[in-house]
């Protein structure tokens, strides 16, 4: 017998309202920016109870803040998660996840097709703290499985990789994570919950650079880490930070306090408390302004991208276009299955004439802005090999699907005709 779940608010409604009530003090309908470092403690008994996690509430804005909490609860609702923690940047969200799950001796298996900053953290910086990473081709499931070691504590990949737009088979990699009793963390910055929910596909944790499509206007730096609340830390037995007494909080065992919220509790009570990479209230407000229109913006982003992809693929100056809309893209079928409404407003392509043609192309663009970012209302262009991914050697670049002449575009919200005209003119210039 089929059973219908109860009606719940649609994602569009969640994007506008989740996690926010009219301000109880003033009735303000817009979210107030609680621009305060700290919160008055009504009496010493309540103060002690708030610090000791006997009562919920705000104490100090590094740990929590009402404006930031509204963003956390909204993205948690949109992702179908148990809760979220906002961070100073997407990089801070990745670091917070890793630092909560493991210490020296830990090991990560990660997709080789990552944002350059994430690759830097995993490849260059974390080994100094005793955490090693094995990079695997994201589409090679046997490589994921083979790379898992006894000390592996996390699988990590991007829902859609940047810049080669590789599509991660989240259900399949999540199954490998489940087989090994370790969580899968997915960076869903490119897809956003509007195009697909990684937790529903089997991921256990999700992070975003909220700087990108969530805020959507290129005005802030921020990140967020969402916990699905589904992973069984006790049964896994591999995460003493969550299942054994923590001296830093009176011997608390987080999985005993809450099997669902253990990860979030430790990440907030240790990670935000000690590393301090919290989000500012003004930042949360600005991201929320963007988030309210996520479900209007993303369809436009991907629809215009489809036009750009089609245009570039048919242009004589272009050797190859990397985007799952293309039938020759290795992620084409997978993308259709996981992201039926479209999967990316990011694409890359290779020009005839290599690096020099790329330079002429970028210099000739007028509507596209040449900068290191994606997910803006404004269309963006960059040459990854010399900028976002310049610390990668040739082998790592190849593993990430980046050639010397690869150009990355992030398609914005301008009229498609104007974008195509700009691209057309610059492509002609690139071949002169």
């Amino acid at each position, binding site marked *: 017998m089929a059973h219908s779940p*109860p009606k719940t*608010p649609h994602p569009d409604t969640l994007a506008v309202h989740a996690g*926010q009530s009219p301000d109880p003090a003033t009735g303000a309908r817009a979210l107030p920016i609680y621009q305060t470092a700290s919160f008055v403690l009504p009496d010493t008994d309540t103060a002690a109870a708030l610090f*000791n*996690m006997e009562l919920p509430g705000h104490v100090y804005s590094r740990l929590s803040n009402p404006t930031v*909490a509204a963003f956390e609860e909204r993205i948690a609702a949109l992702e179908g998660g148990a*809760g979220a923690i906002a961070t100073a940047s997407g990089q801070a969200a990745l670091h917070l996840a890793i630092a909560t799950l493991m210490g020296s001796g830990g090991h990560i298996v990660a997709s080789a097709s990552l944002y350059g900053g994430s690759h830097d953290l995993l490849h260059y910086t974390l080994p100094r703290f005793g955490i090693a990473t094995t990079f695997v081709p994201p589409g090679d499931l046997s490589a994921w499985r083979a790379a898992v070691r006894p000390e592996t504590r996390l699988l990590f990949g991007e829902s859609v990789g940047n810049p080669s737009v590789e599509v991660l088979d989240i259900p399949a990699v999540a199954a490998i994570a489940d087989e090994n009793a370790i969580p899968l963390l997915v960076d869903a910055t490119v897809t956003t919950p509007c195009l697909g929910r990684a937790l529903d596909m089997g991921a256990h944790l999700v992070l975003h650079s909220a700087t990108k499509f969530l805020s959507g206007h290129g005005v802030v730096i921020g990140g967020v880490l969402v916990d*699905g609340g*589904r992973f*069984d830390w006790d049964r896994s037995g591999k995460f003493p930070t969550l299942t054994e007494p923590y001296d830093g909080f009176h011997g608390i065992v987080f999985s005993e306090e809450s099997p669902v919220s253990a990860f979030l509790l430790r990440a907030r009570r240790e990670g935000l408390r000690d590393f301090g990479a919290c989000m500012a209230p003004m930042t949360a407000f600005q991201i929320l302004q963007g988030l309210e229109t996520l479900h209007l913006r993303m369809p436009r982003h991907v629809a215009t991208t489809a036009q750009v992809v089609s245009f570039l693929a048919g242009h004589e100056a272009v050797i190859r276009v990397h985007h799952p809309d293309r039938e020759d893209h290795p992620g084409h079928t997978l993308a259709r299955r996981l992201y039926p409404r479209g999967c990316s407003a990011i694409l890359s392509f290779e020009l005839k004439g290599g690096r020099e043609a790329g330079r002429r192309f970028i210099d000739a663009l007028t509507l596209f802005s040449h900068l290191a970012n994606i997910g803006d209302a404004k269309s963006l262009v960059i040459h990854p090999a010399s900028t976002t991914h310049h610390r990668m050697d040739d082998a790592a670049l190849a593993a990430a699907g980046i050639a010397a002449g690869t150009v990355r575009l992030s398609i914005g919200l301008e009229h498609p005709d104007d974008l195509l005209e700009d691209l057309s003119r610059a492509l002609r210039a690139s071949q002169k």
Partner: protein
Amino acid sequence: MNVIVEGCPAYAYTGGQPFDPGKPAVVLVHGAASDHSLWHYPARYLAHHGFCVLAVDMPGHGRSPGTARTTVAELARWLDAFIAATGVAKARIAGHSLGSAVALELALRHPEHVSRLALLGTSAPMPVGEAFLAAAKDGSPAAFDMQATWGHARQCILAASPIPGLCLVGAGRQLIARTRPGVQYADLKACQDWVPDPAAIRALATPTLVVAGRRDQMTPMRAGRALATEIPGARFTALDAGHNLPVEAAREVAHALRAAFA
């Protein structure tokens, strides 16, 4: 802490303080498809304010192994055995939803073991919707969605959470979904089949507090108020929350229980 009850281990969360039978004992009883973590904040608060807290996981729930009991009477008998196994002679008992039925039934059967009573999100009897029960019987995930959605104030996902950063409906659903197969149905069926004795309720001498959520979609506030009027001398408090009071109104519940159990 763990004790042996009816031959099987039983777990209780002590609120971050060691078990101390020298303090007044408070037993917290969760509802259907739940566990001790429902009481997270109130348990910690009471444990750090002079009480010996035992937030129990009923058989087959949370960290307690075993088979879920199928009637309120069986659960009350088990709870009585649990309290005896801890060495506590007389306890203050707070129950939520199904747990409130269990706590009330224990107070009716063994008033000598219950010094005070707090019934949260309660109703006597405690009927369960037909579609909800059918979905739980079939082990359908829709039953998790129903409990998570109706178990909180209507559209609470659209409001600010009292626990910063936590999506109450999302977290609540994950707790329900962790329940072992068949346990949610056993719990709901126990609610549905419970036939409280009105005459015994009208004769109850245990000091009782009834706490209701003004926006409760499962045990409506009027049901809690009606029960409070039946229990001699019972006090009634309504909070701005839905059914999942220990989470949705953790702060108010902590304060109310501290006052009621002082």
